[in-house]
């Protein structure tokens, strides 16, 4: 049962990923469609982060002392100041875990 689920999930995810890579699919992208898709990285990655930051443990947390929110703000500031993705990721994770232990 579990193995069946794992393989079926694999098939579902792969189909999502592969569907539009198939050349026999009759589809041409207009310039408007391309412009729209140009927003896919900021739009989708932000949507993935939103609930992790504001709904930790599935509970709404809009407090300014929410460690996820503070950690995210630190990450924004660091990457804009240093332009280093690696440094800002590592530093913001460190700060997040410190904040979490203080504020919890």
């Amino acid at each position, binding site marked *: 049962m579990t193995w069946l689920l794992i393989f079926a*999930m694999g098939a*579902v995810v792969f189909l999502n990923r592969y569907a*539009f890579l198939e050349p026999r699919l009759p589809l041409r992208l207009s310039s408007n469609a391309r412009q729209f898709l140009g927003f896919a990285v*900021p739009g*989708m990655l932000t*949507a993935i*982060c939103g609930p992790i930051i504001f709904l930790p443990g599935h509970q709404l947390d809009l407090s300014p002392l929410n460690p*996820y929110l503070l*950690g995210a703000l630190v990450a924004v500031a660091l990457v804009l100041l240093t332009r280093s993705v690696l440094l800002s990721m590592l530093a*913001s994770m460190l700060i997040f875990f410190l904040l979490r232990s203080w504020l919890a």
Partner: protein
Amino acid sequence: MLPYLAKCAAAIMSSSPPIARQAFLHGAIAILPLSLAVAPWGLLAGSMAIEANLSAWQGQGLSAIVFAGAAQLVAIGMLKGGANLLSILLTTLLLTSQHLLYGLSMRPVLSNQPLRWRLGLGFLLTDEFFALTSHYDQQQFNRWYALGIGLTFYVAWNLFTLAGIVLGQNIPHLDQLGLDFSIVATFVALIAPLVRNLATVVCVAVSLFCSVLFSYWHWETALVAAGLLGMAAGFVCQKFTGGRP
């Protein structure tokens, strides 16, 4: 799966022309920071599988076959809660539907590749892969570079899952450590430098607000609906201001 991949990588290194090998290595190096940053998330995926009474092989199988962090974690949670096969599959379909968008966006560079490249790079098409390869056009796109990115990330994800399985068998409650923040740290570092004009600010703001609201309402399509609305808002704003993306 892993020894097979190591063999593949070795074969790539020895049999391919030097330019391809170099592009592969450049891709592998480009994804290295993100591969390290995915460690906490991979640990979580491995340890949660053990906590939900999956066998070590099943936990590893999820990462090796499904290779989609968020979907794996949600499926494990549902399995623990006694959900049936069909509802887990439907949730997986909705949760990972942003990949349809990534595929659509990569279509100009990937759909004219030979079948085995389409299948291989299609399997490796993750959020991180997309973030690093989506800005190349047909002239600049190098499939070996993309393979270096995808394969390195795949190996890292599976190694960290393995570490999570081993740790999860020994340390309980790894899921309460806030390991999911690593996704926020990674994605924020990828998004923030892209926010250079009003249209992108609008896109990010709408997407953030909607993702929280829809998740609060327990929509299963929350993420992709919020992402699409954010993209639409950015697109409309760009049309009005006439700015460049």
